[in-house]
């Protein structure tokens, strides 16, 4: 995999590593249309600053695009970006490395 692509994939993994961000992304995907920061914040039990921070990470990963309109900022989901993570071999490679290390830790403590 090319470095730049790997970098994007890393950002996507990071963006979806957090449950709140996955929820926000899910809501945006389901909405299928642009939502304002206010509308998004209203749906979650987290501060507006928190939502803004999460949106920023989703935007960095290319999963969400935002644009300002008047005093509001609108967000729209780009789920196509997830196609970047289509390399299952790379995914499982990391998955098994992590898990086999976990097994070692488990065996050492029992």
């Amino acid at each position, binding site marked *: 995999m090319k*470095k730049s692509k790997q970098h994007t994939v*890393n950002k996507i*993994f*990071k963006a*979806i*590593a957090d*449950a709140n961000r*996955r929820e926000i992304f*899910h809501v945006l995907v389901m909405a299928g249309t642009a939502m304002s920061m206010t509308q998004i914040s209203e749906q979650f039990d987290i501060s507006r600053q928190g939502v803004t921070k999460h949106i920023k990470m989703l935007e960095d990963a290319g999963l969400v695009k935002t644009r300002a309109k008047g005093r509001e900022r609108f967000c729209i989901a780009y*789920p196509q970006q*997830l*196609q*970047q*993570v*289509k390399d*299952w*071999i790379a*995914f*499982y*490679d*990391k*998955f*098994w*490395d*992590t*898990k*086999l*290390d*976990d*097994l*070692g*830790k*488990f*065996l*050492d403590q*029992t």
Partner: protein
Amino acid sequence: MKDVLTKQHHYNSPINDVWAAITEQEKISQWFIKCNFKAEVGYRYSLLSENDNCEQIGGEILKVNPVNELVYTWIVAGTETVTTVTWKLEEKDGGTLLTLEHSGVSGYPNEETAIKMFESFNGGWDKCIEHLDKYLAGEEVEAAHGK
């Protein structure tokens, strides 16, 4: 495209302990993923999400050869692709050498890859993803140092 992912890992523990860790439901649930599991050929196992016990991965036990070989199918919930996971154990250097093979991985068609994977994460792969996140973070640190 290579279709078998092979991993080797040496553990200091005796082979019986490693075998127990990969075949006993309670142990698997501790270090791997919460599960319903029995090391019996034909048993339909499930790996579950932490919070709501939803099946994330499921499959059938194909081969049980204590304490050396365990084979099962591995199907991500919501996908049709059947992959196979093989655990081989052998005594080596006073411990145990584990060889893990995951085959059929390249069989995932493009349209069911990322989206389904995302949905699996969404169900409760937080821990796995946290580890992955740390792993990736480490990798980025390395990359930054390499520049």
